């Protein structure tokens, strides 16, 4: 009887911790308007995706990457992917069209703002990185490096809708828990 009670308490505590960690992402991005970034991307999505020469391949939507991420790892994964886009993807893409450049600039600067917000969360110990998130991030980096730089950059730019929808879903609430 005592053992049952202890195990029940442990399970309850785990659920509580899960919900706290999931809410961690939502609290960190509370002043972020994801829909505005999604709308900005929709305006250039067709043009960007039309330039993707490997349309039957995906980097973000594989079972080992975004879809495998558990609620506890959402914050870390978001932080890692934002850094990847800001440090690598946007730089590797050379855009000449001023209209497209304007939209990519808007998204890139919004990602920079999100990064800062998540960094503040990390300082408050609300964004822990477990092995699962680190491994998933490494898989994405490896898949990216397998392609030629510009093709890889265009592909990941074209998959921004996948990334933004994933952030939006996790940003909306503890349903993922």
């Amino acid at each position, binding site marked *: 009887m005592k053992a049952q009670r202890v195990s029940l308490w442990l399970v309850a505590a785990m659920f509580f911790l899960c919900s706290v960690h999931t809410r961690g992402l939502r609290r960190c991005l509370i002043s972020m*308007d994801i829909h505005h970034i999604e709308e900005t991307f929709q305006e250039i999505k067709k043009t960007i995706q039309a330039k993707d020469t490997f349309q039957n391949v995906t980097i973000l939507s594989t079972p080992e990457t975004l879809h495998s991420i558990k609620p506890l790892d959402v914050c870390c994964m978001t932080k890692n992917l934002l850094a990847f886009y800001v440090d690598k993807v946007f730089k590797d893409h050379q855009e000449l069209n001023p209209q497209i450049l*304007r939209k990519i600039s808007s998204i890139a600067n919004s990602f920079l*703002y999100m990064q800062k917000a998540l960094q503040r969360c990390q300082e408050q110990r609300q964004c822990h990185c477990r092995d699962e998130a680190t491994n998933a991030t490494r898989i994405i980096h490896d898949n990216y490096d397998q392609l030629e730089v510009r093709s890889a950059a265009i592909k990941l730019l074209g998959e921004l809708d996948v990334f933004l929808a994933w952030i939006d879903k996790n940003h909306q609430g503890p349903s993922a828990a």
Partner: protein
Amino acid sequence: MWFLYALIPCLLVDGVAVLPAPQNLSVHSTNMKHLLMWSPVVVPGEIIHYFVEYQGEYESLYMSHIWIPSSWGSPTEDPECDITDDITATVPYNLRVRASLGSQTSAWSTLQHPFNRNSTILTPPVMEVTKDGFHLVIKLEDLGPQFEFLVAYWRREPGAKEHVKVVRSRGIPVHLETMEPGVAYCVKVRTLVKAIGRHSPFSQVECVKVQGETLPLALALFAFVGFMLILVVVPLSIWKMGRLLRYSCCPVVVLPSTLKITNSPQKLISCRREEVEPCATAVLSSEEPFRAWL
């Protein structure tokens, strides 16, 4: 004079005269509308065109050579540019302007301190509080899709609870509460801009009240007296008017007794010729008062 001539080559760059760069760049931002302004470059008789470019923090950190032409400011003839559509993230933005006249261009003039939209001035929103029957309705000004409104309303009585409603619709009347007659309801509102995580100050408080259903006693009594008066006065007036009309249109004429003739005119005529005396007497009896009057 020779000194001035010697200076001319300094004013030319690659054989092209250089315009002075625009000065005193500043950004005026209110309710997430951002306006870049500068002192105009004046060349008498000429129209100067200005080119505006911006660079977000991302570009300044990772691609410092990239400057993006402003949506509405490249080119512009006015010494100001609406950069609202360019500043789309809550990060510092560098801004620069240069003047152009034909083949001449000025150097770029850069904003001294980068502009971040979280420094925008948020003003209390304009609201219109109305009553639709017993319904408390509020209409808010349209400040754009980035604004939400926090509406606080309460009954104006001691210990009343304050309710808060978040309104996202713009320019459309919103129902707050069904009011109780005779109770005043007060409303105040402020904006929230999620993109920068800031609120505006609250607006002035406005209160409205719906009149009670039961009329005051004096008003009811007054209405009753007035109704009774109308019941009496109106028929009386109608009767009087009727009489007036009858006398005006078809008056009954009553001859005075002195003008009444008792015999027929035929008899009178025959009396004049043959029976003067009896007729005269008869006539006299009618004429006497008349002669007496003459």
